[in-house]
């Protein structure tokens, strides 16, 4: 290779490597801010701020959803299988919100450690399958004659 081109090749490689390193360090330094939410274990351990709005992410504990009889208030527990945090939300929940499914709730923590959520988002997992396969995995058969929709 021509020496001038070789020099340019080294220069280009250096440019890519150094800019990657710089941005990598920035991302590493800001990792707490890049994370969309705090897991319940961090919230229980007091690592999440209590003076401003935070996001809490995890799984909705099976059997923990309690809906109010009179209004839209819903309370449930969010867990990462290490710790759990109670959440209260007043509003319409997304379609995919369910027990045992992922959720991200945004709001502030009160003195008792409950998250007063202003927004609840459902976190979808990476599994995609037809209803029949899902039913087979559950050990049941899909009901015949009608489309199985969630």
């Amino acid at each position: 290779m021509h020496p001038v081109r070789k020099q340019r090749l080294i220069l280009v490689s250096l440019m890519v490597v150094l800019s990657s390193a710089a941005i990598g360090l920035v991302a590493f330094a800001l990792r707490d801010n890049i994370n969309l939410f705090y897991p319940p274990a961090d919230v229980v351990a007091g690592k999440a701020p209590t003076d401003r709005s935070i996001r809490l992410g995890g799984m909705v504990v099976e059997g923990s959803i309690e809906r109010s009889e009179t209004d839209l208030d819903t309370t449930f527990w969010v867990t990462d299988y290490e710790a759990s945090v109670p959440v209260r939300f007043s509003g319409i929940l997304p379609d995919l919100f369910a027990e045992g499914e992922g959720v991200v709730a945004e709001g502030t923590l009160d003195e008792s450690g409950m998250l007063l959520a202003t927004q609840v988002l459902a976190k979808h997992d990476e599994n995609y399958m037809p209803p029949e396969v899902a039913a087979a995995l559950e050990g049941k058969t899909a009901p015949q004659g009608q489309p199985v929709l969630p």
Partner: protein
Amino acid sequence: MWTFIHKLGSPPWFFGFSGTLVRWLLPVTVTLLLVGAVWGLLVAPPDFRQGNSYRIIYIHVPAAVVALAGYYVMAFAGAVSLIWRIKMADVTMRAAAPVGAVLTAIALVTGAIWGKPTWGAWWVWDARITSMLILLFLYLGVVALFEAYENKTAAARACAVLSLVGMVNIPIIYKSVDWWYSLHQPASIKFTGESAIDSSMLYPLLLMILAFYCLFALTLLLNMRAELLWNHRDSGWLKQLVGDI
């Protein structure tokens, strides 16, 4: 092999070669897109939790995958342009940027449309979504930077540097869902081990990804040809070619 690469750098030869390629690629792309879309949107089964709304995957994922791959094409052309000073590389880089921008925009918009019913929000400042937005700005930045210079050789050099520096964003987008807590789900298609998506839904998706790769190649070639026609509007070989037709 080397003669082929050398020939690629020659505008008249490339113009003829790309013409033949486009003639083959066009029917292949249209067929793949039609088959993939009908298979994915009509034939594939609904999802067990999302019902039919998951079908946006057949546009969203291919657009996003090819937007990332397209950036490497642009950055590679930028590197070739910087090191070997080949004019054809400038043309490739310039032609790839708007195509990549459109694909990124498609991925962002379809993602928002899917996010509203699924997550409950159009937009979340999640690592994956934010880094994808940066990708859109990088593509648009290359287009804008190229237009900002009067001298196109200097423009190409500046764009090459921008696209090479921006390249660090691609692995960040790809790994963002694994490195940080994010709302966006991890990858369903796995290169090693079993995919988290049922094969009845996976095959049309792979077909659509292939179709989008072809679509990218096709639009890139057409864009490059348009660019060549403009750049060489006064050249002898082009006048001769037009004269022949």
